């Protein structure tokens, strides 16, 4: 039973079934404001389903989901609107701002923040995979929502871009603090980003372990402490 209603995100005894198949079994997770939680688990264990429950895209069969603030999501497939420019894509979350000058300044700030100055008028199809993900980051940072969900956001990038953008994400979250919940199958990614790692079992999925990563940023994936955490996570997943 979760008693802390001050938590930013609460999943309490949540179960979910697809037809007759039980996918999620009695999951309880609580995320505090500003915390960066990464959920890892074997492929097909229902990580995305879990995130879909958090966003309200799916409803649980039983249990309670409570998200106390507005949310932005970065999806695995990339969700930039191809008919909008970089600046327009970043601006969709700010489109209700009345003061156009301030809105444009905010958009420009975000674009500068993700190092895409000069690409404001480019369309997504004119950018590399890494650049597109930077635009996505700028877009989720825009506006007043203070929770970010990420579903394997960097899985389509090559190794170097992935390393780069993880650092970028940490840097951006330091500048604009938000609560982060990310699901990934990439253990390196989890240990580099997370304050806390939640490990799921395979189906029917439940939380099998969670651990705090108390290593200061910037983290390098060759640091012995991180390697140790990664080994520990791996061990838990493979059990």
């Amino acid at each position, binding site marked *: 039973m979760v008693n802390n209603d001050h938590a930013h995100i609460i999943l309490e005894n949540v179960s979910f079934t697809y037809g007759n198949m039980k996918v999620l079994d009695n999951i309880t997770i609580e995320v505090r404001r500003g915390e960066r939680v990464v959920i890892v688990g074997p492929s097909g264990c229902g990580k995305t389903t879990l995130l879909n429950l958090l966003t309200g895209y799916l409803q649980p069969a039983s249990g309670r989901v409570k998200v106390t603030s507005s949310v932005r999501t970065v*999806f695995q497939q990339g969700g930039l609107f191809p*008919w909008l420019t970089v600046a327009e894509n970043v601006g969709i979350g700010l489109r209700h701002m009345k003061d156009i000058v301030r809105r444009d300044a905010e958009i420009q700030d975000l674009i500068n923040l993700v190092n895409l100055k000069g690409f404001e008028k480019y369309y997504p199809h004119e950018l590399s995979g890494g650049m597109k993900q930077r635009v996505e980051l700028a877009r989720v940072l825009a506006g007043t929502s203070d929770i970010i969900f990420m579903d394997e956001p960097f899985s389509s990038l090559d190794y170097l871009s992935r390393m780069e953008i993880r650092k970028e994400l940490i840097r951006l979250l330091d500048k604009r603090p938000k609560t982060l919940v990310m699901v990934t199958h990439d253990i390196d990614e989890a240990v580099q980003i997370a304050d806390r790692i939640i490990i799921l079992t395979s189906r029917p999925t439940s939380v099998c372990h969670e651990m705090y990563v108390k290593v200061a940023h910037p983290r390098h994936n060759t640091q012995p402490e991180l390697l140790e955490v990664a080994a520990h996570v791996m061990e838990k997943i493979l059990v």
Partner: protein
Amino acid sequence: MIHKNWLAPLAILFILVCWQVISLLKIFPEYAFPSPLSVVKSFQEELSTARLLNDIVASLWRVAIGFLSSACLAIPIGLWLGRNRNWNTAILPILNFFRSLSPLAWIPFAILWFHIGDKPAIFLIFLATFFPLTLSVISAVATIPDIYFRVARDHDYNGTELLFKVTLPAIMPQLLTSMRICYGISWVVIVAAEMVGCQDGLGYGIWDARNGLRLDTAVCYMITIGTIGTGIDKLFQRFTKADNLKWGYGKQ
């Protein structure tokens, strides 16, 4: 090496030369196979009486009205059916049935219902384009990646904003291609539609030339139809070069 800008004009020149050679060989009698020169003469004739111009305007008008009214109905219906699975399941077989009927099969009805003048031709253009356009809008909407709607939902897009800022832009490239194809269809159908029940128009012009055994005039009308059709297609093609549409067409 020939510059690529010259390739198409050279191909046209080649066709003209072949045409001239065949007519000089007299395989067919002059009245059944007019030479390029006689066609040029009949062009002059038609232009001097302003009949050709009048026919062009009449046909363009009918096609425009028929095509626009069909687009005005087909696009909203397609958008609606594309997002409503049950209605779509119910209506799709009917749309497919009518789509496979040649619009020319409707000619007797068109004449009985609308008599003569613009209306039967406009009605036939409407029928020729409405079904394929609706079906292609349905398929365009149904294949919009779900991710766009999820992003839209994340950013509180609703109602008309969702329609005009997400759904329509997402189908725009496919919609333009379909409209381009359907406009082509209507330009083909107008000729047949005007052969009955009309007193002017490019189709009537050809029919009238045939009745007077003036195939040179018929060819002159055919060239006009082909040229205008190509020109309008070029116009549609220009839209596809718009910056916010290029994403939908890949490399051109």
